[in-house]
């Protein structure tokens, strides 16, 4: 069982209409040669980090990313290209979800442990991440580009003791606003709403 303080959040299902402009503003330029899925991931992660008031991740933080369909659009593009020629090299790279991890690492000035988990549930992703999490905490995201897109992220710090048992949280509500702490126990999620008494020193903002 681990409890995390939520230091930053981006809950964007779907993202706002201006998300591409916002991403360009955060990056200082429009991203080039990366697919929509990776752009969505960058937008959500950087928005979450900005809300957390962090520009760079600490070296012992980890990035964990999940998705239901991931790079399926890039994969379809490459399969079409493969009908009568080799794919475009950068298009092929975009079929690998780990490319987004590298983009995030570069953008956040960080080298460390990052992992992509395919097709599971958000609470299962958090369970794996929590088992390996160190003092630097997690940047945990869930990104999909179908059905208007979704890019949901949390910046989580371990600790932050909270009073009471909290409330059971459905997996699809992990990224939703309204709680300052989240606890993972096996596959079970519990949320601690804003206003819950914080007993530890590492509370949310």
């Amino acid at each position: 069982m681990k409890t995390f303080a939520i230091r930053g959040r981006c809950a964007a299902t779907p993202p706002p209409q201006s998300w591409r402009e916002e991403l360009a503003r955060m990056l200082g330029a429009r991203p080039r040669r990366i697919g929509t899925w990776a752009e969505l991931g960058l937008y959500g992660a950087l928005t979450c980090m900005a809300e957390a008031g962090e520009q760079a991740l600490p070296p012992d933080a980890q990035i964990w990313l999940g998705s239901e369909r991931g790079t399926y659009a890039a994969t379809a593009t490459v399969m079409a290209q493969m009908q009568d020629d080799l794919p475009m090299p950068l298009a092929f790279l975009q079929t690998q979800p780990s490319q987004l991890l590298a983009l995030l690492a570069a953008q956040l000035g960080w080298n460390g442990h990052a992992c992509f988990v395919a097709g599971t549930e958000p609470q299962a992703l958090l369970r794996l991440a929590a088992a390996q999490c160190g003092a630097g905490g997690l940047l945990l995201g869930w990104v999909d580009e179908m059905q208007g897109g979704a890019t949901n992220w949390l910046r989580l710090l371990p600790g932050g003791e909270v009073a009471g048992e909290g409330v059971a949280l459905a997996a699809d509500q992990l990224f939703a606003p309204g709680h300052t702490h989240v606890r993972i126990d096996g596959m079970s999620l519990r949320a601690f709403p804003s206003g819950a008494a914080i007993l530890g020193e590492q509370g949310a903002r």
Partner: protein
Amino acid sequence: MKPVHLCGSGLACALGLDMKLALETLRQGGVAPSQITLPGMLGGSFPYRAIADSQKDWNERARQLVQRVAAEAGAQQAHNGVLFIATSSFDIGAVEQGGAQMDYRAFADKVATWLGWTGPVYAISTACTSSLNALIAAHALLAAGEEEEALVLGVELDNRMTPGGFAALQLLTRSDSKPFGAQRDGLVLGEAVAALRLSAREPSPWKLLGGANVVDGSQPTGASVAAVANMYRRALAASGLTAEQIDLIKVQAAGSPGNDAAEAQGLRDAFDTVPPLVSLKAAMGHTMGASGAAEIALLTACLEHDEWPRQEREIDAQLHVSLAAAAPENARRIMATILGFGGSHASVVLERA
């Protein structure tokens, strides 16, 4: 922290459909690669280390191989544990045949059904480091007492997209793989299904001590010297060992001109005296997301059965490293390393009783 034991392994690769056949083939000097033909100006014929079987239907072939390899690893003893599927290509070969859609969850469910798996299932995809990241994740769950059994299943099977992408990036050789070789000019890809069964309750001569993965975004398609050294230092720290305690390192050394050089330099930066090194890429090809599990399975079997891959190629003297001609005596503490796309550098540490 509970100790985590490596209790069983299974392997199907170009060397053979099971470990016994793979060791026998290795003893006889290996097997010539097959060929794959790709379209376009940069396409043509490339060597490819395919698993030799005649089944053409991707799903049926995968089912047979997964069930066979999992059984060899003793997966039936872990069905209530956690299953990690490690892959970079999922079932894209089935998609190319019209036998699947691009759906991660459907793929994971399909594999779990083949195995009659009742515990949690995770699909890890970090390109070529997928299996090692799955091992690191499994180790964390077992060591923390959250699970008692785990199976790490590396799956990388025939499809056109992956070799097509590597060819487009001009990463493939048209001759053969030359790990750390003076004339190295690219990779030979291969197929593998490999299974490693981990347990926190069953003893075994092999222990998984821990590992580390370092993503360096400055090199999204290649290895970084600093990240290689950082990876080794972190893996040693996670395992509670020092560099001097390592008896053998299974390196990536896929035969890439740039990556092999970066890897060699990173090794020299992390180790004052570089331990004996071994590469299995020339024997089985680079099996991408399955490679971590496949190469650990083969290496531990080699050490148990006194087999060793032939290292006949001339090593690049400028790299200032060498490959061991024979297994080091009493090799107890072993590191296994894979480097991959996405700037991913991963290594795990095993200890033999």
